[in-house]
């Protein structure tokens, strides 16, 4: 299970804010072509754990190893990461050059088409509803074609069609060998899509293992 082919490998990770313990002893592995669901009550530190996994935060103790370079990593969370004063296309153009993807305008418009924003390509993203901004955020994820994808409750504010779109992209990402770490509030709905589950509870890791053996009563 600890094979060098894993996308993500956490060993005994602990984190504090000041002197306040958030969680301790988190160890887990993410294999290619798999989806890991992160569960736990509010304030259990799920978002913090995701930030540590993505390298935004350094853990106070333990080690994190990522098997992919930064340019193959994408993150989608509560925040849309959208520049309101730029057009939808302008936003994508910027990330296109930062990630060195080399797509032309036709390619970028194709991405906007996939998330249903083609008709709004030249409109300032600041005028978008939350759902539309999240779809633009999804287009950014599609642009990166990540091998490692972090999702922090991305379906908040998405309509049914957009959620279906997101779930399709998750399946597609897994099918091409990418790994996904996914924080979801709707376990009922999303457990079936996951391969593994990591549960945070009582300032520690309460469960990490196959999704099939995870009992919901533990929550």
């Amino acid at each position: 299970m600890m094979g060098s082919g894993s996308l993500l490998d956490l060993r005994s990770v602990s984190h504090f804010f000041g002197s306040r313990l958030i969680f301790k002893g988190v160890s887990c592995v993410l294999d290619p072509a798999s989806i890991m669901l992160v569960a736990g009550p509010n304030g259990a530190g799920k978002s913090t754990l995701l930030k540590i996994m993505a390298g935004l935060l350094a853990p106070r103790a333990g080690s994190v190893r990522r098997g992919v370079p930064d340019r193959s990593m994408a993150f989608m969370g509560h925040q849309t990461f959208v520049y309101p004063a730029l057009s939808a296309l302008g936003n994508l153009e910027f990330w296109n050059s930062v990630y060195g993807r080399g797509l032309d305008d036709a390619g970028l418009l194709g991405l906007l088409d996939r998330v249903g924003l083609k008709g709004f390509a030249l409109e300032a993203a600041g005028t978008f509803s939350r759902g539309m901004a999240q779809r633009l955020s999804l287009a950014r994820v599609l642009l990166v074609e990540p091998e490692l994808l972090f999702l922090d409750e991305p379906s908040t504010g998405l309509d049914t069609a957009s959620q279906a779109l997101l779930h399709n992209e998750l399946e597609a990402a897994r099918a091409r060998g990418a790994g996904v770490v996914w924080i979801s509030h709707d376990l009922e709905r999303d457990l079936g899509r996951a391969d593994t589950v990591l549960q945070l509870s009582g300032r520690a890791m309460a469960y990490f293992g196959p999704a099939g053996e995870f009992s919901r009563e533990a929550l």
Partner: protein
Amino acid sequence: MISSTLAIARKDLRLAFAGGQGPVQAVLLGLLLVFIFSLSAAPGERFSPQQAMAIFWLCSSFAVVLIFSLLFRFEEENDTATALLLSPLPVQGLWLGKTLAGLVLLLLCQVFFFPAALVFLGLDPGGNPGGLALMVLGVDLGLCVLGGLIGAMGHGQGAKDALLTIIVFPLQVPLLLGGIRIGVGLMQGVPLAALGDWFGLVLAFDAVFSGAALFLFPHVFRGE
């Protein structure tokens, strides 16, 4: 790194001019300062070249603070700062991109400050425009290198970024002295070679703070 640095600078300039704003706030404040200082001379009385240069650089110094406050505010809405930290862009590239964008905006402001100083302060540009341009570029670079580093500290601090000015202004002192002294020298027809010491000082400031910023910026702009 160069292409993504340029992407940052291009994006920031587009954002700055979106909605037709640009560095309008900085330009207006500078023009206002020039006008107010012009009141300190009696009618018909001329400002000395040193006074006029000092006022010109004071305006530029205020403009830099406003410009970098604007440039880093762009990364606050929707937490794009986090998106940049997650991207493959080296964080020093972000500093360099912001510094470049700031330099362009500052030069643009000075396009307004300079004629204002001519009109209101009786500034006499002298006969060495090339030397003057070189000096302005050298001093501006230092102002922006420092602005890019300190400006990032104001990021996400709310009202506290106004406090940073009390430490930025005294740090700029060597640059401002250099800008004033070289400017006055050039206007009075002193040859460029005779101002070598001052150019050396300005370049030393640019180099020292560029080095410091490359080393320190990753500590300022990070995900915590």
